[in-house]
């Protein structure tokens, strides 16, 4: 029984770590939604695209090499150099800022004042477009991403817990790094939004466009900035997920897991995205552990279910929608009649 408890604790901790990764994706959604009212379906694809670009730059891949080779009859694939991770990350940030500018200049500038559903549809289009561009630019095979983050079991925790409880906890080093990075990122974002000039302007735009214009804030500039920041958050998420499970196109599907996170945390709250992510991460891991264990669910209900991780988050989100539609931290929606 004690063994079971320790195992449950380990599952809980791992759930927290998984939750951090969900929260990272959800964070990108919240940023754009707050500042421009756009629900950005493409956030997951942005994470994928940034990870692809990062790998491509690091490995010295030639962008669009398939098209170039097919039209010119050449056979080039690599420049033959390797770029250090830090420079490659810097390069990817520049690409994401450029992407933000293009998105603002060619899509959303023309859709100012449109219905939210139209903006949402535009981001769906953007998602598929970006996925296609990513494929054309960097190829569709699964790539390994290694920016030098530590991976594998953390031996210290394993040993210490073994000596204390007689049971070694399995915690992945990468998960610890991801947690630290996510915490730093959130602190940074909150300070930026609360105290910097650009952050204040961002909050102003989020609150009232007309009023923001009247105090001399350029909406265009703020929107480009917000998309850039969201691109940066996507890059961080892309690095973590890519390192964990390889850079592959199914990465864009993690965006769907961010949806229940947002329903829990609220679409407009940065802390909400974090708490929501953690609840979903822990909830689905513990639920899976409980329901699939013959000693627990088997004893209690007489049956076990497995693979609950696929649907648990959505069911939880549905329950939340019934009882607290604005999420844990979202702004309360009051309609006066």
């Amino acid at each position, binding site marked *: 029984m004690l063994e079971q408890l320790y195992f449950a604790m380990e599952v809980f901790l791992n759930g927290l770590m998984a939750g951090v990764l969900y929260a990272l994706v959800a964070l990108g959604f919240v940023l754009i939604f707050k500042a421009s009212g756009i629900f950005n379906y493409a956030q997951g694809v942005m994470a994928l695209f940034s990870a692809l670009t990062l790998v491509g730059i690091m490995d010295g891949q030639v962008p669009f090499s398939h098209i170039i080779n097919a039209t010119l009859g050449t056979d080039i694939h690599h420049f033959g150099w390797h770029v250090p991770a830090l420079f490659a990350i810097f390069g990817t940030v520049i690409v994401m800022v450029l992407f933000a500018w293009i998105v603002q200049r060619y899509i959303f500038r023309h859709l100012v004042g449109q219905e939210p559903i139209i903006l949402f549809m535009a981001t769906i289009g953007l998602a598929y477009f970006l996925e296609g561009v990513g494929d054309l630019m960097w190829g569709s095979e699964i790539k390994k991403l290694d920016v030098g983050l530590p991976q594998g079991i953390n031996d210290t925790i394993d040993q210490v817990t073994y000596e204390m409880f007689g049971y070694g906890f399995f915690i992945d080093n990468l998960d610890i790094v991801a947690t630290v990075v996510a915490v730093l990122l959130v602190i940074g974002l909150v300070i930026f939004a609360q*105290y910097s000039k650009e952050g204040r302007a961002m909050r102003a735009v989020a609150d*009232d466009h*007309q*009023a923001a214009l009247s*105090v*001399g804030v*350029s909406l265009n500039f703020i929107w480009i900035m917000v998309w850039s920041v969201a691109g940066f958050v996507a890059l961080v998420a892309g690095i973590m997920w890519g390192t964990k499970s390889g850079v592959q196109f199914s990465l864009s599907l993690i965006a769907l897991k961010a949806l229940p996170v947002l329903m829990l945390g609220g679409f407009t709250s940065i802390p909400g995205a974090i708490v929501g992510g953690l609840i979903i991460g822990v909830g689905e891991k513990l639920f899976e552990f409980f329901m699939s264990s013959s000693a627990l669910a088997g004893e209690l209900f007489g049956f076990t279910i497995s693979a609950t991780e696929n649907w648990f988050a959505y069911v939880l989100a549905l329950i939340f929608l019934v009882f607290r539609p604005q999420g844990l931290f979202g702004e309360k929606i009051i309609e006066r009649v």
Partner: protein
Amino acid sequence: MLDSTESYVTEDGRTIGGVVMEMKNITLRFGGVVAIKDISFDIREGEIRAIIGPNGAGKSSMLNVISGFYVPQEGEVLFHGKPRPQLRPYEVAQQGIARTFQNIALFEGMTVLDNVMTGRLNKMNAGLLAQAIWRGKAEKEEIENREKAEKIIDFLEIQHIRKTPVSRLPYGLKKRVELARALVSEPSILLLDEPMAGMNVEEKEDMSRFILDVNDEFGTTIALIEHDMGVVMDLSDRVVVMDYGKKIGDGTPSDIRNNQAVIDAYLGVAHD
């Protein structure tokens, strides 16, 4: 008739300078509807200039043209004697022309102090890095901006609600917060779109007093739109009267009071 650079002293001892802004043959159309038809008038430095007229006369449209929210199809705006290129609203604000809105455009989610502080956004020049490490320029600017904001908050007597979220304030106070946000940017021209709309007599008196004080204390040029004829006549140095997009009168309050076209527009006229 005064020359555009000449200045004069009013009865109550304020000095009104030369022309700072001039509207020249402005025409604004929305599709087939002509909102403003060939209107010209000027605003002198340090004066309180009122734009009045019945509903739908095009007053708000005129203010929107000045503040860059609307682009007129014809005519030009001269600022300090030079034709102003077509600017976006935020660029107009950066030139030192602040405004308030008829339907109040405040940041509802922020406190009064935060709202007022947004009025200082354009006065912050420190780079992001300086702000992050909170050194040198950033620190100095922030302290200075905060001082200015507190001064204006004191001036408009809204200290007691400094930390209250704007969404919880009554209408009259919201109007005053909006004025504070416009004022804190130390504008050279202040545009007020119906600053007294929907207020009771007492609130109107308060607002009138603040407008006069602002003009007196800071020497701010004020252009305002107002429905209430009595208030306008007491407040303003010169009045433009609009009706159906056309200018039907322009002059001192006493000129306007005796202008037959204005009387007709306001009281109606028998068509026979």
